[in-house]
């Protein structure tokens, strides 16, 4: 059991990456100011942290980095509300507060020996990136069979994690595809919503495959329906949910869906689990 006093640990911003050309997503590379704490800090892909802007407030963000890296961790922030706006104003060297890790994380252990397909839409690629980098890490790559990625963005201006693409594409037995919503001059990759590409365009191996999808709710819905039509079991389609949160430890009361607390019982759920939960998210 973990004891918490709900207070954040101070962390330093090491680097800030401007992800999208329309300027609304930034990735922060941070480390705890206490070096011992940083070295001992561990988390699972799919878990999240509460980030404090001192004097203002706190908001939940999924880890966007792989825990295989011990020197720092990353999270991506889309500017939406007051905390994210202030985070976007932060500079390298500034201090923020971190609590966590929280939540269940992706079922990394039970995915051993399987094919993996990632379907990420927009900022939804952030939590998947933690698992992608974990799976494609040299130390772990042999635990999984074929790995395929479909990264979906609204337009070429909305692409995320461009610096990762070369590394992802050059990993053995790994296939990476990109798609945008509408045709666009200079774009030679896929065009169309992810669910329309699944059957014909992607040459996916469907049996013995586990699917991880994260993105706008409407994308998840269509992708899931398409996969179910193709005979994929809902228990093999895994996603992560977003909710308004304060405590991160299942107490403050706002992130529940029925008796499940997204912060504690989630944020990672299989489509089978979501089907069994009341429709309140």
């Amino acid at each position, binding site marked *: 059991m973990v004891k918490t006093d*709900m*207070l954040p640990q101070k962390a330093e911003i090491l680097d800030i990456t401007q992800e999208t050309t329309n300027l609304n997503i930034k990735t922060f590379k941070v480390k705890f100011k206490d070096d011992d704490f940083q070295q001992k800090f561990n988390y699972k892909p799919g878990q999240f942290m509460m980030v404090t802007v001192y004097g203002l407030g706190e908001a939940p963000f999924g880890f966007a980095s792989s825990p295989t890296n011990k020197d720092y961790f990353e999270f991506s922030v889309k500017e939406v509300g007051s905390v994210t706006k202030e985070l976007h104003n932060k500079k390298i060297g500034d201090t923020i507060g971190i609590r966590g890790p929280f939540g269940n994380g992706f079922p990394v252990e039970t995915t051993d020996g399987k094919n993996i397909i990632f379907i990420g839409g927009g900022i939804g690629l952030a939590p998947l990136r933690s698992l992608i980098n974990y799976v494609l890490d040299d130390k772990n790559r042999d635990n999984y069979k074929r790995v395929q990625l479909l990264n979906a963005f609204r337009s070429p201006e909305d692409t995320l994690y461009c610096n990762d693409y070369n590394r992802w594409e050059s990993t053995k037995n790994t296939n990476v595809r990109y798609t945008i919503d509408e045709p666009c001059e200079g774009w030679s990759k896929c065009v169309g919503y992810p669910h329309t590409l699944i059957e014909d365009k992607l040459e996916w191996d469907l049996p013995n495959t586990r699917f991880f999808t994260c993105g706008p709710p409407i994308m998840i819905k269509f992708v899931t329906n398409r996969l179910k039509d193709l005979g994929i079991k809902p228990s093999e389609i895994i996603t992560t949910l977003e909710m308004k949160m304060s405590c991160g430890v299942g107490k403050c009361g706002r992130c529940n869906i029925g008796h499940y607390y997204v912060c504690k019982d989630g944020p990672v759920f299989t489509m089978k689990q979501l089907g069994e939960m009341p429709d309140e998210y």
Partner: protein
Amino acid sequence: MMLKKINSSQFEKIFNKLKKEYNIAAPILHQKGKKELVEYSFIDDFKKIIWDKQPDTSPKNIIFPQNTFLGNDYNGNKEYDNNKKTIILGVRSCDLRAIKTLDQVFIEDEMYTDQNYKDMRDNTILVGLSCEKREETSFCDVLGIDAIESDNAPIYIFKEKDSFWIKVKEKEYEQLFIELPDGNKDEFEKLINKRRENFNESSFDLDIPVPLPEKEIFKSEIWKEMSEKCLSCGVCTYYCPTCYCFNFFWEGEGEESTKYKNWDSCMFSSYTVHASGHNPRDSKDKRYRNRIMHKFSYHPLNYEGLGCVGCGRCIDRCPVNLDIREALKLTEQFLVEKGGA
């Protein structure tokens, strides 16, 4: 077990002795505008204690203050480290059971303990008080709570006219009362039996499965009907002894700012709204459903026992007379009709 019987002046003497070593909180009268409310407060005058009326608020505000200072850094010093222990005097069965409910969430949870709440609780001695009659809006008996005595306090007071029986159930507290005159056990038994015989039952009866089946109840239309007149004022949650929703606030600027934990309410529309504007509980019926379901489905599923203690304060306080008993009755009816169909 140790049994003592004392009069008011003897009690006052022991109170005055205890207050040197302990902070003592008890229900006292507060004049609030035109209203008189009995609330738990820290006191040093025994005569102020109100024994014969259900306090308007529960002692929740003593162990889980409406505004709790947390600090700045994770290993910062705690404000209450050097405080004396707190005795909460005169806590009735319903409120004792409510504190148990908070303990389940904040201390006994298998994943996370709230260190702040635990420190507060470790620093608290609960002294129970036996009820002499049931309030009109109380339905603790329907929820299986014995208003006369509870196991959730190590020390229990039974008031009988001008006398106080003090039952000390745990050895470690016997020393506090050792010098007082003993009470006669047979006489005490008689008092309890008589009290039990004459105790008024609540006029409410209920037959629902616990935990309530969540997916089924979500289909019920009663929530729209029930919540139509709700003002989303949150009074029910603030008076509720088991409601514990909270939010964090920062005071000061930048890195030196300090963090506070404040009560929040699931009845507020802003409570669940995402930064994007999306709100999973965007209407009153969903919020009202969440409050009732938390107490009768989610809490029993996640922990043990109900999240409602039948104290009746929400019924008493609601400005538009929403009655939780009515919601439960309609739920019972809904399940019967569904089962029969």
